[in-house]
Every structure is written in structure tokens, then in C-alpha cells.
């Protein structure tokens, strides 16, 4: 088995009595896009900062290509290019100055031509002479990617790279990240609270909630990505459960109520479902699909919240 590009072993971070990250372990193999998913405040940025040595873990250790970051120090960061949270750049310098200066700090001899190629890749060619303080958020994000890529790192760490972008910017960023993975063979660790984004891009993913790992694995295995949840809302129909039980849909049903039906199915079957509802005289008010990851994520976090909150609830009840 190949050495992981980056590996977290039992990472924990306390801030006083608050546990931001608890005993988190994972390993990212070369060549994948690894999604790091969690709600705001789940501990994603703290974890990513620990991976880069920006925050010191309370316990646990980070390994980059099998070497301890604590022991080897910052020199291991030459294997990584990163944007953490938002690309705060030097606004009083031009895009080119930012890129050239940060490239010079990578410890490698990087040609101007390589940097111009990167500017072309991130669609900033022709704008590099302008001061960064005049750039849009999307331009800053793309320049941040170019800076992260300047020294041709093995791993790109991108923390919420679509934050603050408009829909077009999000689509461009997604395309760019997929291109970096497919064409340039980069390993990418990408965090997001935008579930759809992770589902669109990642090969593997890890979900954390309140600083704890909830699940990790290949996205397609975790999500059955070929299936989606379809929710149908209709005028109350007392016979609905019986109708469904006698139909071909029974195997796909997740929930059935007088006014609502939820099925897990392939999107291609939706028109057929619609026809069947019409035949059965069901007065459909709304038919919608729910992203399976979103549902999966919500289920997981709600289960965790119930689990975490249960002792407190029991204590409250006992006190009564």
C-alpha cells in the first residue's frame, strides 16, 4: 500500500474545557480528491490548520509522506499547497507580485513561465499587474489556487474554496479542482459545508461533527450515488399505504404517510413514478428530489446529536 500523502493520528485540540477536535484519525492516499465535510464549527478548519502546523495539537500527530510534522518541521510543507479559509493576500501588491513572492518562498527555483502558465490555468492572465485589493472574491480564490500550485506540490489543501463565490464562480472552481486532479494528478483535500460540492467532486470523504469523526470512506459506497431520495407531497390520501404496498414501488419506499411519500430510487424512474401517481388519481402538490449526501449527512449528525444529548436529557428527567 502506498504511503499516505498526509495522515492524522489521534488529533485532539482543546481550548480550555472546549474540545474542538477529538481523537481524529484519517489518511489520504495519493491521487484522490478527499472531501472533508462538516457543519460550520464542526472542527474542519482547526483540523486543517493542525495538518499544516498552524495550530499545535493538544495531542496526536500529523505525518506528511510518512514523516512527522512535529519532528521534521516546516520543511515538509514543501509537499503541500494550501488555502485556509479565505485567500488573504497582500492587497497592496499586484497579483503577479503575490504569486512571484510566494513562489520564491517555496524553496524551489520556479520560472516566470511556469507562473504565467498557472495564471492562464486559473483564468487570471492579463489581470496579474492589477493590485489584489481590486480583485473580486473569485479572482482572489483563483490566485490563491495558483499560489498553492506554484511549487508543484503533491497535495493541495483547500479549506472552503467556494466560500463567497457566486454560482458561476463555484462552477469554475469545481471545474478547476477536478482538472487539477485529473490532468495534473494532484491529491486534493477539500473541506466544505456545501454538501453538494463534496458529492460532485470527492472520491473519498470524511464527515466530522462536533470535532469527532462520524464516517469515512469512498463517496459512492457511502452514498449509493446512483440513487436519490424522491419526496412526493399530495392532498391527503387515506389509501396511499395500501396502494404503494400493492405496487412495484414497495421495495423503494422509505416513508409513507397520508400526505407524503419518500422513496429511494434512480432518478431515471421519476417520470414512471409520476405517471403511476396520475393513474391512481393522487393529487400531487409537489415532487422533489433530495440529495442523498445531504440526507445522509443530516441523518448522521442528528443521530450524533441525539446520542450526545441523551445523557443530559436523562439527567434532567432524573432531576425532575
Amino acid at each position, binding site marked *: 500500500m502506498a504511503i499516505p500523502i498526509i495522515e492524522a493520528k489521534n488529533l485532539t485540540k482543546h481550548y480550555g474545557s472546549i474540545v474542538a477536535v477529538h481523537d481524529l484519525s484519517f489518511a489520504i492516499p495519493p491521487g484522490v480528491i478527499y472531501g472533508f465535510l462538516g457543519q460550520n464549527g464542526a472542527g474542519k478548519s482547526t483540523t486543517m*490548520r493542525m495538518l*499544516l*502546523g*498552524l*495550530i*499545535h495539537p493538544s495531542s496526536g500527530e500529523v505525518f506528511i509522506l510518512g514523516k512527522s510534522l512535529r519532528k521534521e*518541521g*516546516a*520543511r*515538509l*510543507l*514543501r509537499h*503541500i*499547497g*494550501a488555502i*485556509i*479559509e*479565505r*485567500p*488573504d*493576500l*497582500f*492587497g*497592496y*501588491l499586484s497579483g503577479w*507580485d503575490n504569486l512571484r*513572492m*510566494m513562489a*520564491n*518562498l*517555496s*524553496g524551489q527555483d520556479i520560472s516566470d513561465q511556469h507562473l504565467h502558465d498557472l495564471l492562464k490555468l486559473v483564468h487570471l492572465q492579463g489581470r496579474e499587474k492589477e493590485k489584489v485589493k481590486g480583485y473580486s472574491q473569485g479572482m482572489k480564490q483563483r490566485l490563491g489556487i495558483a*499560489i498553492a500550485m506554484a511549487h508543484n506540490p503533491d497535495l493541495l*489543501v483547500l479549506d472552503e474554496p467556494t466560500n463567497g463565490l457566486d454560482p458561476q464562480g463555484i462552477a469554475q472552481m469545481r471545474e478547476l479542482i477536478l482538472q487539477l486532479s485529473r490532468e495534473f494528478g494532484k491529491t486534493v483535500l477539500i473541506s466544505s459545508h456545501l454538501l453538494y460540492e463534496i458529492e460532485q467532486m470527492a472520491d473519498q470523504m470524511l464527515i466530522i461533527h462536533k470535532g469527532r469523526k462520524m464516517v469515512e470512506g469512498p463517496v459512492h459506497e457511502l452514498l449509493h450515488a446512483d440513487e436519490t431520495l424522491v419526496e412526493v407531497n399530495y392532498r391527503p390520501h387515506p389509501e396511499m399505504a395500501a396502494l404503494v404496498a400493492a405496487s412495484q414501488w414497495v421495495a423503494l419506499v422509505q416513508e409513507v404517510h397520508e400526505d407524503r411519500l419518500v422513496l429511494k430510487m434512480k432518478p431515471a424512474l421519476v417520470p414512471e413514478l409520476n405517471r403511476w401517481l396520475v393513474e391512481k388519481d393522487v393529487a400531487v402538490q409537489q415532487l422533489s428530489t433530495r440529495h442523498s449526501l445531504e440526507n445522509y449527512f443530516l441523518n448522521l449528525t442528528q443521530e450524533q446529536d441525539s446520542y450526545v444529548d441523551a445523557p443530559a436529557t436523562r439527567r434532567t428527567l432524573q432531576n425532575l
Partner: protein
Amino acid sequence: MWMPLLRAELYKIFKKPRTYLGFGVIAAVTLVIQLAMYANGQSFVDFVLQGIQEQFDVEGNILNGYLVTYIILNLLLAQVPLLVALVAGDALAGEAGAGTLRLLLTRPIGRTRLVLAKFTASSIYAILLLLWLAVIGLGLSLLVFGRGDMLNFTADRLIMLLSDDIFWRYLGAFGFAALALITISTLALFFSAMAANAIGPIVSTMGVIILMTIITNLELPLFQAIKPFLFTTHMVAWKGFFNEPVPYGAMLQSALIMLAYILVLLGATIFVFKRKDIQT
């Protein structure tokens, strides 16, 4: 890696408009003093010499470039630390506040090296301020007021320095002032390592200087024991170059104490910064 890092730090300093504030302030204050001396310098000299002229004949170009520069240094060297603190206090905290510190620290540069680069860049800035002061203060004063023997009034005597025996003293004084400003710069950098915006370190540095200066100037028995250990006591030791004979022993001691401040503060800055979590 060291040179690109130092170049980057210097490049950032000299790309910020704030950096040139210091050069502008020095030029403005120096020119105002020179203008005042040009207009009313002779009456100033007559006033200072009124007690002496009753007993001695004082001849020659008394209001010369050397004397004017000495007056400028006395008035200005107490203010230059604020200008140095503006840049050094911003060095780490300003970048933390702007978020660029985490961008820098995702590069394989190391925190110790970054602190050393910022220390060196801030020191270079302080030295350049002094060079500017030398050019515009000494250079322009000599051009406008000419050369001559210099009269230096100390608390208990009048010292006359011959014209040919003065220039080297200014070189020494500027070198000594550079050491004092680097001490201030290191203090500001130390505060900067602990903060997430530049205002706190700049104000803290000025606060420490004001407090120590007050203690240095108060002739109270309570403070006598600690005065020799305050860097503000030694920052004015550059004036020793204009004594006769030059008190080399005392000046060396002052220089060593400031050097000790620099080394201890720099070590403390590295210690604090290496343990700091970058949250901004």
C-alpha cells in the same frame, strides 16, 4: 531560503505607504529646525553664550552644520522610536490581523526563520531611517551652515570640539543610535508576536518607552537601583561621543546592555511565536 524570505520582508515593508511616513516626518522636522536656525540661529547662539562671552572672546562660525545637527539629534532621536515601532509592531501582528500570516506559514519557511527575517528587515528599516537623518540632517546642515568648531554644553562644562575632530563622532553617534533603535524594534516585534492587530504592539512599545524614560529621568532613590538596567538609560549614551574624553568604558557597558535586551527579546519572541496557534 533565507535571502528570498528577507527580500520578501523588505519588499513588503517598502511597498507600504506607511513606511514612508517615517522618512517624511524626519525630513519635515529636520527642515523645520534647520529653517528656524537659519532665521534665528544667531540670537539662539547669543543667548546660549551670553554668560561666556563676558569672560571669553568667542569667534568663528559657531552656528555651523555640526552644531545644528547636534541640536536636531537631541530633539529628534527621542521621537524616532515611535516611527520604528510603527513598522516593527506591525511586522507579525499586522500580518496576523490581515490573515497573510497563515499564507506565509503554509510555506516551508519555519517560524524561527520568519521571526529572524522580520527582525532583520525591521532593523534595516531603522538603520535606513538613521541614514536618511544623517543625509538630511548632517549633510544638508553642513551644506547650508558650513563647517566649524563645535561647542557642546554639558551639565557642568563647556566642551569645544575642533572641526576636524567631529565627523567620526557623528559616525559613532549614528551607529550607537542604530543599536538603540534596534532595541526598540525588537521590543515592538516581541509585542507583535503576541497580538493579532498592529495597534496593541505599537501602543505597548510606546507605553514601555514612556514609562522607562520617566523612571530614568526621575531622580528618586526608589528608582536608582533599577535605572542602570533600563534600556532608556542607555539609549542617550550616543551623546558620549561629543564628550572629551569620550567615556568609552561607560558607552561599551551601555552598548552591551542594549545588546542583551536585543538578544533576550528576540529569544522571547521566537519562543512565544513558535508556540502560538495561528487562529486568524
